[in-house]
């Protein structure tokens, strides 16, 4: 087995992993960095983020506003001290990216431009046309090339962590091109493997978003926090789940039902005005918008499409010129996949799974309870998204906490003595044997594609926009069953070179673990908060019992054990989450009561 | 950046190729028409337009000389460059030999035309 000795190993070459790698390299150029990614970094799913990245920029905006939007948007399940740190660093990090070459869209006088985004009081979303994630990722990737201390392991698939003396000391990865194993020894490890949206059927996520890192940490005893909070994005393509960015609404798009009626005004988001107003109507938060869709469907006011009910995203009034200038990628998507020209016809849309708010439990410095193990990005739960993430906060999270994770992991790596290589190698060989067993064993009868489909369907059924105890219970049972059936899986491919059948099986096993944490955490949260909404007697938020983070703990060969942890409240006491005119009124009242 | 990069000498040939390509694109068809069709067959232009005294005078004039030289030499350098690359395209990488035949003949032709033009006097 190949062995590489690094100071810091980073699993994940998306926005978070790359930012962390650069931070390590800049903090100490003598540290050796191993950057492991199962796809070439620029293929990571950060690439598909369209809308933008939040950071206070405009006159009249303030850190306090950004803080309030984030904490309120997260239904007060945020770590407020972490949010405070986060909002204070966003603009600086986005400026850093500008210095590295990110082609931010500009105002006429050459400054970076900002746009409106859902749930944000003031325009503070930095954007690069409608390819923000693409430009951020490519900028980070290309900048990372500048640092000789970053050794990339592209298309290396991480299959396990190695632990010794109670701390994480490296990772084991498969070189996909050869099927051979590599042990990367490291003083500290950062997991930046992204979200897990593909455990659901209809989702906006790329094929690689399978929760690998979450499952890895979880299996090594690190809790997954707040996993029941899964964000549905309200404007997705029926069938494929592909996303039409929130910027469509930021630019002034309307959501209308089958009668051409802007139905959001019926759900406390009004009044309906012709131009976008922040935190109202179409610019309300995602959970509310997705929920409104569900209600419209119950009322029979949605439109029947080929893939089930849809509503319309109407952009026609923006005009062809503006559409092509500000939303070129949206126009392209609609035309190619749906045959719809947004300038001439409304786009059929529906909600789809988009983002996992929860993840690997870490403190504000990205450190997990397992010494030497850090996590950052969508796979982590650093505490800024609470029960519902605001669009454009997560790209900023990658930068702000990517840097933190890098600096912290570098510091940790320097503070520890080198590990016992012989013992680590022995562990890695055991991992190799176990993982290879999956493809060499015979006599299985289950097909991974079948198991994967059943998993995605049951997650959709039980953990959708609205949830009920009995369907969630069914989902939990089904997942238990699928895990049992996975043991009997049969691979069609026993080869070594680019054996994707094998890798998909490993991913499926990760996904099943992550899905379980979501379903079990959801079942046990008997309240409605943010993205977790119940219709079985727990329709209200319950701050007495559930102003708590859920923590899913791994139990070998069993269901996860769910425990609860405190939420850090500093300046913002839980209040009513109100938007539109009601929200403005509520805010005035809050202000008045403060003086 | 990779070290040990060797600067390519292509710009010389490329510039000649480009010049010839542009000149032939601009006036090539009309020239062919004039010298090969119109004058020999008395279409549009009188046959006498290319009579010996007229052509001699033309070739003894500075500008005329330059024009004739440019046309012959640049056309050939253009063609040589393209043909050389096409040989490479179809898998004939004779290298030195192909290079010699293509650019060599352009070179010889250039010399010959210069020699004749100068010999015609001013």
């Amino acid at each position, binding site marked *: 087995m190949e062995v590489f000795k690094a100071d810091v190993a980073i699993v994940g070459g998306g926005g978070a992993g790359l930012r962390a790698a650069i931070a390590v390299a800049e903090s100490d150029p003598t540290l050796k960095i191993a950057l492991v990614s199962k796809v070439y970094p620029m293929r990571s799913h950060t*690439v598909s983020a369209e809308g933008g990245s939040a950071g206070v920029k405009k006159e009249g905006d303030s850190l306090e506003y950004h803080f309030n939007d984030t904490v309120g948007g997260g239904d007060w399940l945020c770590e407020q001290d972490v949010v405070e740190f986060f909002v204070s660093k966003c603009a600086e990090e986005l400026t850093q990216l500008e210095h590295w070459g990110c082609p931010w869209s500009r105002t006429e006088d050459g400054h970076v431009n900002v746009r409106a985004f859902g749930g944000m009081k003031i325009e503070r979303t930095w954007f690069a046309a409608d390819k923000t994630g693409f430009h951020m990722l490519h900028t980070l990737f290309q900048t990372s090339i*500048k640092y000789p201390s970053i050794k990339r392991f592209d298309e290396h698939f991480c299959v396990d962590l190695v632990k010794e003396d109670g701390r994480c000391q490296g990772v084991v990865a498969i070189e996909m091109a050869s099927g051979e194993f590599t042990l990367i020894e490291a003083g500290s490890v950062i997991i930046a493997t992204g979200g897990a949206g593909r455990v659901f059927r209809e989702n906006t996520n*790329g094929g690689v978003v399978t929760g690998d890192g979450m499952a890895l940490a979880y299996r090594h005893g690190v809790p997954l926090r707040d996993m029941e909070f899964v964000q549905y994005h309200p404007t997705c393509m029926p069938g494929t789940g592909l996303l039409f960015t929130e910027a469509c609404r930021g630019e002034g798009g309307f959501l209308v039902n089958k009668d051409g009626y802007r139905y959001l005004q019926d759900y406390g988001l009004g009044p309906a005005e012709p131009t976008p107003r922040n935190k109202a109507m179409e610019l309300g938060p995602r959970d509310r918008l997705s929920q409104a869709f569900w209600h419209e469907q119950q009322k029979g006011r949605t439109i029947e499409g080929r893939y089930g009910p849809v509503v319309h995203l109407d952009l026609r009034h923006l005009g062809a010129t503006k559409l092509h200038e500000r939303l070129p990628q949206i126009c392209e998507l609609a035309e190619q996949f749906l045959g719809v020209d947004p300038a001439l016809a409304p786009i059929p849309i529906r909600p789809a799974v988009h983002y996992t708010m929860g993840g690997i439990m870490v403190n504000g410095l990205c450190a997990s309870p397992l010494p030497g193990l850090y996590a950052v990005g969508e796979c982590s739960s650093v505490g800024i998204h609470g029960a519902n993430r605001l669009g454009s906060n997560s790209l900023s999270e990658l930068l702000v906490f990517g840097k933190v994770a890098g600096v912290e992991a570098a510091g940790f790596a320097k503070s520890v003595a080198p590990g016992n290589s012989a013992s680590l190698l022995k562990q890695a060989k055991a991992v190799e044997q176990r993982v290879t067993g999956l493809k060499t064993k015979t006599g299985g009868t289950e097909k991974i594609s079948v198991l994967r489909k059943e998993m995605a369907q049951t997650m959709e059924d039980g953990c959708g926009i609205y949830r009920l105890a009995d369907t969630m219970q069914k989902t939990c049972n089904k997942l238990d069953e699928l895990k049992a059936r996975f043991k009997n899986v049969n691979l069609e491919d026993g080869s070594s070179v680019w054996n994707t059948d094998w890798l998909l099986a490993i991913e499926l096993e990760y996904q099943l673990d992550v899905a379980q944490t979501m379903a079990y955490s959801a079942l046990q949260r008997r309240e409605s908060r943010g993205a977790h909404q119940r219709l079985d007697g727990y329709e209200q938020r319950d701050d007495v019992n559930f102003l708590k983070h859920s923590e899913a703990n791994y139990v070998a060969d069993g269901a996860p054990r769910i425990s609860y942890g405190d939420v850090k409240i500093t300046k913002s006491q839980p209040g009513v989450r109100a938007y539109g005119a009601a929200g403005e009124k509520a805010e005035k009242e809050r202000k008045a009561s403060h003086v | 950046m990779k070290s040990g990069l060797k600067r*390519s000498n292509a710009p010389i040939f490329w510039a000649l190729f480009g010049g010839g390509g542009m000149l032939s694109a601009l006036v090539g068809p009309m020239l062919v028409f004039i010298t090969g069709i119109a004058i020999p067959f008395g279409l549009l232009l009188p046959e006498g337009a290319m009579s010996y005294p007229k052509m001699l005078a033309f070739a003894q004039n500075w500008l005329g000389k330059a024009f004739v030289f440019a046309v012959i030499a640049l056309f050939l350098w253009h063609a040589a460059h393209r043909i050389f690359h096409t040989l490479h395209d179809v898998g004939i990488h004779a290298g030195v030999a192909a290079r010699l035949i293509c650019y060599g003949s352009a070179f010889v032709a250039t010399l010959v035309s210069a020699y004749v033009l100068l010999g015609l006097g001013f």
Partner: protein
Amino acid sequence: MSESQKTIEIEVLRYNPETDQAPHLQVFQVPFADDMSVLQGAQYIKDHLDGSLSFRWSCRMAICGSCGMMVNGEPHLSCQTFLRDYYPARVRIEALSHFPIERDLVINMEGFIDKLESIQPYIIPKEKRSLAQGEYLQTPEQLNAYEQFSSCINCMLCYAACPQFGLNADFVGPAAMALLHRYNMDSRDGAAEERMELVAAEEGVFNCTAVGYCSEVCPKQVDPANAVNINKTNAAKDYFLRFLSPKGGSK
């Protein structure tokens, strides 16, 4: 599959280095729907007909650049190429041309990555600026000068389209040149001269014979042929000017 279900034949170039001497074609019958992409066709094969088929994909929305394939001999992103444009005829999919095949539709792209790294694809600032000084000012016009070249998704369709790259794998090639040009044209950057060394080298722009097919197939309208050819002029200028000025031009 019900009888009324329409099907389409997808012919796939298969290659398994452990068992095959050379690639060979294999035909699959795939249920057809008119909104189905070629990628979805391949996924159907993998999920239902032959789990050993290997190919790269991720975003499904033409932005990650993973899923390039030859579709009936032309380079395409399989996620935004639709079976309806071929139905009812058979479609043939193959690994991207001009690259070594690792397995089935998976090519070896290490050479491309080396090229990408060789062009110094990052800002080397003209004048340093601290974070406290805020962003560099860049007008929409200045942004426009390079934006097109910055939208390359590294899908390598242009390499699969470029015969000169096929004939000489050392040629830096269209996408890497487009990226190089992107940085040279960025008002914040000051290293155009350093990058000129590669432009003018034997691996550089003069391998291009202006075939132009690279730009034709580019799914993001990067126009890499333009970047390559503008740099021929730049390299030629540099070549001749160095005789004029003692300092002019790169080494």
